[in-house]
């Protein structure tokens, strides 16, 4: 029998990265198929190929035996493939029906007028299959997230979708809303629609899906029958790569550099406490959305504390803006370099000096000689390539931009460096350079926090790892107990934490 959906030897490479290598699997009609993997394993890339955002470098997707050739994302809908994104793509002020017909409204009089009544009755018809309580004429902004998700599914049904891919659909749902979604998915499956279900939440995948494909590093590492497999087996498949061989060096001292007590914020941080020592590299692991970036932004003064206190060298500090944090010796190397790191058109040297321009100035004028000397020195130290100091930073590779941002904090003489995904979008060579740089900084007595979704990276770098979950610290794992499975067990809601790992979150 021809499978509903077949991925045949799909590969996708971007300059310098192989995002997907030779991925092949089938999904039967009416099957609910889980897609599992860590961040960066290639799940999103695969979904983007399915929905026409990317075209595969090689390989073909088949729907009902027909090769899928998508020029634009909108083409996917016409061949019966619908995508339901984590961030719902809806226009808040328009009605449910208008959103469902967005982009291809029903018209009358030769396209002159939109026939709203017709749209609403057809929308109601599609929604009646899954949820009768939604009023098609209500503005979408008046609906709860769960209902809006149902609307998206209804939209897929309008398009007569044969395959619906859901990317982390439950990330903002309550348990009872999840139950409702699970029912809807089951009824879709019964009517022959195939579902691809991407989620981090192990218990959900086990409950909803029949089979799951597990991806790692852009490859399909296995297909599991969820009736017979255990969560532990699946986690092992997800993370089971070899650890990085390089040895970890520790320069931790007993001196407490920073102490955070009961930090909370409007940006989902809940009662986080920890200490950071001089010379320590503290890793923070957790799923995307667990509050890691938000914690760093609090420490860097970019977001406000709603409760709790931070002390540096035993003295309480309060940050009204990043300026205050920088003055207190904290520097943030942000996750999204393009958005939060670089001033694209400015030279790499002034990008480096941006946080410490006053120290390069006297009488209101920049001392160009002093700035140049510092740029020569610090950018050489981080091994900037090419070593052209007046070249606009946007012309450098991601790794070299990152080095310049690190040099920014060296120039500002920051004692505490916060790294958010330090090697995201960086090629392998520059990656190990940045690891060594972080190690050197620790050796010199800097205190460092590294947030990373790449577990081998966290394990390679950290003296100790905090695992975050839903805005709080779920575990504090010392170096000698560090393992990928220990981290994953604490990071994933619904998974049972391993008995060997000390839980010190709130009881410490």
């Amino acid at each position, binding site marked *: 029998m021809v499978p509903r959906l077949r991925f045949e030897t799909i590969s996708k490479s971007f300059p310098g990265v192989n995002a997907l290598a030779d991925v092949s699997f089938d999904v039967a009609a009416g099957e609910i198929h889980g897609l599992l993997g860590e961040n960066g394993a290639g799940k999103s890339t695969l979904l983007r190929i399915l929905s026409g955002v990317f075209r595969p470098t090689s390989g073909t997707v088949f729907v009902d035996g027909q090769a899928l050739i998508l020029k634009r994302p909108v083409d996917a809908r016409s061949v019966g493939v619908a995508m339901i994104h984590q961030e719902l793509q809806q226009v808040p002020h328009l009605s449910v029906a208008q959103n469902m017909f967005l982009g291809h409204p029903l018209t009358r009089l030769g396209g002159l007028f939109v026939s709203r009544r017709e749209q609403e009755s057809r929308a109601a018809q599609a929604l009646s299959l899954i949820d009768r309580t939604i009023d098609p004429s209500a503005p979408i902004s008046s609906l709860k997230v769960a209902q809006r998700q149902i609307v998206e599914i209804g939209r897929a049904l309008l398009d007569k979708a044969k395959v619906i891919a859901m990317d982390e659909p439950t990330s903002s749902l309550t348990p009872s809303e999840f139950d409702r979604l699970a029912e809807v998915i089951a009824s879709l499956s019964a009517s022959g629609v195939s579902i691809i279900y991407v989620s981090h939440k192990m218990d959900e995948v086990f409950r909803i899906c029949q089979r799951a494909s597990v991806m790692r590093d852009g490859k399909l590492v296995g297909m599991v029958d969820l009736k017979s497999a255990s969560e532990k087996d699946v986690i092992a498949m997800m993370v089971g790569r070899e650890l990085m061989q390089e040895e970890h060096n520790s320069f931790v001292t007993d001196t407490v550099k920073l102490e955070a007590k009961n930090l909370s914020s409007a940006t989902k941080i809940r009662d986080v406490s920890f200490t950071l020592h001089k010379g320590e590299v503290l890793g923070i692991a957790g799923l995307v959305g667990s509050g890691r970036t938000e914690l760093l932004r609090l420490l*860097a003064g*970019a977001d406000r504390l709603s409760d709790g206190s931070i002390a540096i060298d035993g003295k309480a500090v309060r940050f009204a*803006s*990043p*300026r205050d*944090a*920088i*003055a207190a010796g904290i520097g*943030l190397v*942000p996750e999204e370099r393009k*958005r*939060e*790191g*670089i*001033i*694209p*058109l*400015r030279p790499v*040297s*002034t990008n480096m*000096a*941006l*946080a410490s*321009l*006053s120290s390069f*100035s006297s009488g*209101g*004028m*920049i001392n*160009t000689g002093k700035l*140049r000397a510092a740029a*020569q020195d610090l950018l050489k130290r981080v091994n900037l390539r*090419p*070593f*052209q*100091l*007046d070249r606009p930073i946007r012309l450098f590779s991601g790794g070299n931009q990152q080095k310049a941002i690190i040099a*920014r904090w060296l120039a*500002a003489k920051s004692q505490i460096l916060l790294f958010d995904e330090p090697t995201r979008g960086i090629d392998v060579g520059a990656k190990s350079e940045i690891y060594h740089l972080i190690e050197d900084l620790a050796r010199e007595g800097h205190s460092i926090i590294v947030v990373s979704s790449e577990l081998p990276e966290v394990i390679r770098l950290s003296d100790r790892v905090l695992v975050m979950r839903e805005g709080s610290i779920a575990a504090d794992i010392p170096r000698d107990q560090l393992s990928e499975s220990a981290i994953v067990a604490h990071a994933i809601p619904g998974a049972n934490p391993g008995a060997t790992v000390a839980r010190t979150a709130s009881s410490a």
Partner: protein
Amino acid sequence: MTSSSTASVKPAPVFRRFSFSLRDAGTLIGLIIIMAVFAALVPGFVSERNLINILQQSSINACLALGMTLVIISGGIDLSVGPTAAISAVITATLLLTGTPIPLAIFTGLGVGVVCGFINGALVAYVGLQPFIVTLGTLSTYRAIALIYTGGNPVLGIPTGFRSLFNGNLFGIPTPVIIVAVVAIAAWILLKKTPIGEYLMAVGGNEEAAYVAGVPIARTKITAYVISGGLAALASLILIGRLGAAEPILGNLWELDAIAAAAIGGASLMGGKGSILGTILGAIILGAMRNGLTLMNVQAFYQLLATGLIILVAMMIDRATRGRG
């Protein structure tokens, strides 16, 4: 093997002290082409006297455009420069008529412009309103204040002492040209040599990154609007010095010429990019064109047409040479 000698590759020039950017060279070529066309069409266009005339006629717009350039670089826009100039003009003129000493009147007039700019900047930086909307609002508000203050009447009879200051000559060069040249040099130094200039480019180039890097965002934005307001006031002093009267409706549509000069000179309305030299050249391009067309007795309607076309052509060339993105 000569490896030992060739190994010492000479290092690439790490810094250049003064860089005449490619974009400025483009603006200069544009100016030269326009000058050449008029030189061929209009006898006496390139005479020393007419060239000085062009500079003098461009000076008011150049003065405004310098402030506008800094605001645009910071990622904003200042539509209120004309009415700011009007308030400053009528207040300065009234003070002069009531016998206020000239330096004090000038100081007050500039101060009024600074206050107008500060209000714009504070609304943008602290209240968080969009620059276009803020200055659209103050465009009307400031104009209304100037009209209410004077009852709609011009303030006539500005004393000659003041007029000779802003409408005189120094070594054969009109004082407005000298004033604007000094302002331009100051603006160039500000942009290229001071932390404030670097902050302006950082805030306009990537506000989020600038914030994370500790750049004082609010202070930087306010500085740009304050300078723009102050320079609008200075431009109004030049104008009332020339006319001998201050009308509450003066400065109508000044903002458009100023934006045009900045854009022709390479300022990006997306922020983060702009050139002082380019803006000056842009203002001279607009001035030279009007001067040449006037000398050719071309109707004002066609002058407006030419101004519009030159802006569009300049932007298209800019786009084509810069490539996509």
